[in-house]
């Protein structure tokens, strides 16, 4: 994940508009790329997207606010999305939630002090046959146990620490 400080958003967004198109229908693609690259879409970037696509900045930010996987405020380098819907819930997702919360020392909706992890719930992610499941950024982890959840976090911590 890249830092946002000092980024020339005009240039960044221009390149993305070139890739996706300079029309409103390119909005989701551009926002998703920014989200992947920078972990969020900051207001300055949103304004450049609006200018590039000929739409209002308000439109850009209201679209971001609609989709769970887009955000305008920074989150952790790794966003842990634990599925809370029925099959995962029945497979004791609460135990996984507790393990994650204890391991990271944060509640759901919070980010660790080192900026490495954010804990979030998500709705059914289509892994019901291998419940409970979670996404970490876009990587899927299934058939979780409290132990495996802790190990997975440890793995990312090592990776993030190195990066």
């Amino acid at each position, binding site marked *: 994940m890249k830092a946002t400080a000092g980024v020339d958003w005009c240039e960044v967004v221009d390149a993305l508009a070139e890739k996706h198109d300079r029309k409103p229908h390119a909005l989701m693609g551009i926002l998703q790329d920014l989200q992947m690259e920078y972990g969020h879409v900051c207001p300055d970037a*949103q*304004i450049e997207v609006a200018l590039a696509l000929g739409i*209002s*900045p308000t439109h850009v*930010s*209201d679209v971001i*606010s609609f989709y769970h996987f887009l955000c305008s405020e920074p989150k952790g380098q790794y966003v842990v999305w634990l599925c809370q819907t029925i099959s995962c819930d029945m497979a004791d997702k609460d135990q996984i939630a507790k393990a994650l919360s204890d391991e990271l020392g944060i509640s759901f909706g919070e980010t660790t002090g080192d900026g490495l992890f954010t804990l979030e719930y998500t709705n059914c992610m289509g892994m019901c046959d291998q419940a409970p499941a979670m996404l970490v950024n876009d990587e899927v982890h299934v058939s979780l146990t409290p132990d495996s959840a802790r190990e997975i976090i440890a793995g990312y911590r090592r990776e993030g620490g190195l990066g």
Partner: protein
Amino acid sequence: MNEQVREIGTQIKVTINGEEYTARRGSTVLEICEDNGIPIPTLCAHDDLKPAGICRICVVDINGGWNLETACTWEVHDPDTVITTHSPRIRRARRAILELLLAEHCGECYTCIRGGNCELEDLAEIYGVRDLRFEREDPRFEPDTSSVSIYRDMDKCIQCRRCVRACDELQAVGALGVFGRGPESRVDTFEGMSFDEAVCTNCGQCVAHCPTGALQEIDHTRAVWAAIEDPEKHVVVQTAPAIRAAIGEEFGLPPGTSVTGRMTTALRDLGFDRVFDTNFAADLTILEEGTELLLRLQAALVEGKDVKLPQITSCSPGWIKYIELFYPDLVDHLSTCKSPQQMFGALMKSFYAEEQGIDPEKMVTVSLMPCTAKKFEAQRPEMADSGHQDVDYVLTTREMAQMIKEAGIPFTQLKDSQYDEPFGDASGAALIFGATGGVMEAALRTAYEIVTGREVPFENLNITATRGFEGFKTGSIVLEDVLDEWSFLEGVELKFGIAHGLANAHEVMERLRRGEMDDVHFIEIMACPGGCLGGGGQPIPTTDVIRQARANAIYSEDEGLPIRKSHENPHVNYLYEHYLTDGPCGHRSHELLHTEYTPRGFRLKK
């Protein structure tokens, strides 16, 4: 589908509640019911806006389907359509929707500016809501008082999105959007900015389209009461042309009732020391702005200078903020003339104060405007050329009506009276400033005569090409047999354009940027649909039918006035002879009557 399109407009028979009706194919169930006097409750529907079908209060039964459909969106194409507008399940669904909205709607109705004119309150009355089955929700928002024009109390918002749609569809501003989703969704600005920081033109179309009191003007009535009641203050009021054709609606008169004489009486009764007509300054604007145009044409055609053409009008403060925000590189196209409100204010605390021997410090200048953006304009820092804030307070039509009611003045029964001198008489040309195209028509009446020495060649001086509600109108007038001093204009076809509503202004500016306006000399742009008569400070509701009625009132009053051309206003001529002695666009008028603009853009300030 294609067959349906071809058939739109033909008459078909439909059944509503067991009765047969004839309807225009392709019209909505709501339109058919309205035409036939069948009541359908609505909240998100507005004649100015595209149907959204989101509040769902207008649900009806179509052909006995398992679910209900919204009357506002359902177009009738099938001649056999059977519509039911009341049944137990319809009543229950509507009542559930209404109670859900009421439980979320926080605020005391008796302190609400829209008390008595609130669409939600009206429905609560019709449905006899005495208590709610749902627990009331807690307030979620702090009121936003940051803007100098518009006050937001989002706890009163019912999320009909009429403000969002007006801001997008009519105004192409996009100041407002919907954020979040589900029960957490809310109407808000970019990144939740306060309204003063948001990309907002202050036009007030959001206010004019709000069914409740969630959006309203920033109140100036209390300050004006204080000024009127202060014996030390000399309080003058100016009234914009569009008020007289609309304020009667606040007192139950039909739209299009001209109440000029009653309004001046009411203002005097209210305690204003002088009641003046902004139209005086509108006449002045025509002389200044017309002269500016002729000077620009001279510079371009004779001196080959790089002056910006087309020249674009600058009377509408919503439009000014729009161009400053969205086309900051093109502000040089704007006429440097202040709006009539601000010209008037500057003269009030200079010329008038000097003539009357009044200390400008003890003067309070109030203007009565159909507009919320005028509140913003009045407090722009550069609007103090008299050495004081030129205009102290701006009241909307609605605010003024409320004050008249509060004072207990029997408005409809009042006798007519005249405006006070020395700014009493004004021309019909100034009066039509209130309608889209009016500034252009007034300017042409004067400019043509200055250049040719003859009246404009139209019957009764009515330049019909400038009239009507088409989004962007163009026209031209050929200058022939011009006077010697204007010989460079001989044979020139003066091309003009007129736009109203910022969405149309947006189209004009995009075309201008593409070079498609290079042969046009003069463009009038008004921020609000219909011009000032449809302003954001006018009585609610405002719709096209009401705009047309107000326009008719303005144009017929113009025809009845003895003076129809701005350059024949004797007070304006007196002013140029005794005060602005170096003439239109001269040094003194530049100091007092002209201004400059702020290229704002909307990138965030670092």
